[in-house]
């Protein structure tokens, strides 16, 4: 197996809809685990997913999914399952027929298709409703049956466009657990979501997109560390916040500090987080200050998103 056989590769890929930019010069190397695509409306998330699955053709560049080109659907879709955002179904089909009939198109024998469909539907918790017409399902059920259809043939790559849309809170947390179990089985999961804290919670890597460009890519913490123009904010709980602030300024460890509203904490900003974290213990001990907790407050995806893209557009 070559290195690219276990990765999804976008090599300088661009897609234009006439004169409208879809994505531009996207280069990505996606390894197993959960990779989330995050960005505002029109940033290019769905375009990237559709390019990956051959539903769209790249205007420029090369795409390979575990070594297979999107131009080879026969081989590609043995590896990929795609739960697209289109909320529609072939008319007249029950949930079970919807999953099983498409398995037949893969070349599975009828008996195997039936069993695979039943297992997939069980995995998404829709067994009781599987013989009802899919068009009559609630939004959450439609989302789940589409998820069942995308996992039924046991793909190695799962592409999920807004998979948490329409799910209630319990179903959302179950879905996230399911995604994590897929990742633990070694699958590649490419997920787009607009719920940043859920993306943050489940993702191994994040690709931030804006106006068709990849703005940042990697682990959230790593991304945050590289944003030197935005000092990191840290909340330090201690018994003498004012004294601690003075000593931190003396040592040049912080660029800004303020007392927390409850008077028992210090909200500081530092440009060198590593130096700050390694030195604060010594500073506190030398000054006889008792530290209760030290926690970064802006190293999550929401903060990264706001710094890089801004809150105006809102993720979607």
């Amino acid at each position: 197996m070559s290195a690219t056989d276990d990765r999804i590769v976008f090599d300088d890929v661009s897609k234009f809809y006439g004169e409208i930019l879809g994505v531009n010069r996207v280069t990505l190397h996606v390894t197993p685990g959960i990779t989330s695509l995050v960005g505002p409306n029109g940033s290019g998330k769905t375009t990237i997913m559709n390019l990956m699955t051959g539903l769209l053709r790249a205007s420029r560049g090369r795409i390979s999914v575990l070594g297979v080109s999107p131009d080879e659907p026969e081989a590609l879709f043995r590896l990929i399952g795609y739960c697209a955002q289109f909320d529609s179904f072939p008319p007249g089909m029950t949930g079970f027929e919807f999953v099983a009939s498409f398995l037949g198109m893969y070349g599975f024998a009828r008996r195997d298709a039936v069993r695979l469909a039943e297992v997939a539907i069980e995995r998404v918790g829709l067994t009781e409703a599987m013989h009802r017409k899919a068009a009559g399902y609630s939004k959450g059920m439609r989302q789940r049956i589409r998820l069942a259809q995308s996992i039924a043939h046991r793909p190695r790559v799962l592409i999920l466009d807004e998979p948490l849309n329409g799910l209630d809170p319990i179903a959302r947390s179950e879905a996230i657990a399911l995604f994590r179990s897929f990742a633990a089985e070694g699958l590649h999961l490419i997920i787009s979501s607009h719920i940043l804290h859920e993306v943050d919670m489940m993702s191994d890597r994040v690709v931030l997109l804006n106006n068709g460009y990849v703005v940042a890519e990697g682990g959230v913490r790593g991304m945050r560390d590289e944003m030197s123009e935005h000092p990191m904010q840290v909340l330090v709980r201690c018994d003498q916040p004012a004294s601690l602030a003075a000593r931190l300024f003396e040592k040049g460890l912080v660029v800004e500090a303020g007392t927390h509203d409850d008077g028992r904490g210090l909200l500081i900003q530092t440009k060198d987080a590593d130096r700050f974290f390694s030195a604060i213990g010594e500073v506190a001990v030398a000054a006889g200050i008792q530290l209760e907790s030290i926690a970064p407050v802006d190293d999550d995806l929401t903060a990264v998103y706001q710094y890089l893209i801004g809150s105006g557009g809102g993720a979607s």
Partner: protein
Amino acid sequence: MSSIPQERVVEIRPMAPLSLDLWIVQIRSIFRIELKRSLIGKRAILTWLLALMPVAIALGMALFPPSARRLADPDARTTAWALLFELLVLRAVIFFGCAWSFLNLFRGEIVDRSLHYSLLAAVRREVLVVGKYLAGVVAATLIYVPTVLLSIALTYLPMKAGDAWTALTTGGGFKAALLYLLVTFLACVGYGAVYMAMGLFFRNPVFPALLVYGWEFINFLLPPILKKLSIVHYLQSLAPVRVSEGPIAIIAEPTAWWISVPTLLILSAVLVGLSGWRLRHYEIRYGSD
């Protein structure tokens, strides 16, 4: 939702390797799904209603015959049926029925926003085209062949049983009936391929379909060489009875069956191939479709 690894739950044989055998399995699967839709889906209602038209007219002619003298005349019956077949069955029922069914094979799924499910299956897009086309042809044949048979039977119904039997057996009636069925089948094959291709090549295929209808309709006015650029010319050439097309019609020699049949089949194969090429390069952009 359950996070039990699937492998622990069932043992499934791996998918068949990529091969001609796999294509046949996939075509069968696509065929089954599409045939069901084409015969008993909501979209089939219009096709069935169209198919009932000639039956209703033949029934009317049987129940309310024009005159007692013509009732017993087998030639008059044959001519009446030939007119009914060419003017109604061929030029309206099969033409519009095939337009509706075959345009919707792909265009209908684009309108429903469900085509992507087929394109996301591990199947060559050309195989998808062949599977759907075959299902469309078989469905149309299953609808229109009984229509033609029933209409023929009703046309001869008012005759005395013995006269009708004589007309069928000694007057070449059975052969004629078989030829009508062949023409019906070839019409489904030819018009089906035309309309499936139109559904893939045109965002709004109604106008191109009307153009084709116009071309087929004025076929009787065209010079012989241009007549050969229409499907209806080859179908008429195969029909057992020549129907008068009026005083201003330009008469042309019918094309021999051994040219007509292969021409229709080759034309259909080329159009199915073009449809496969088109689908292979097709992008799912429902918003712009």
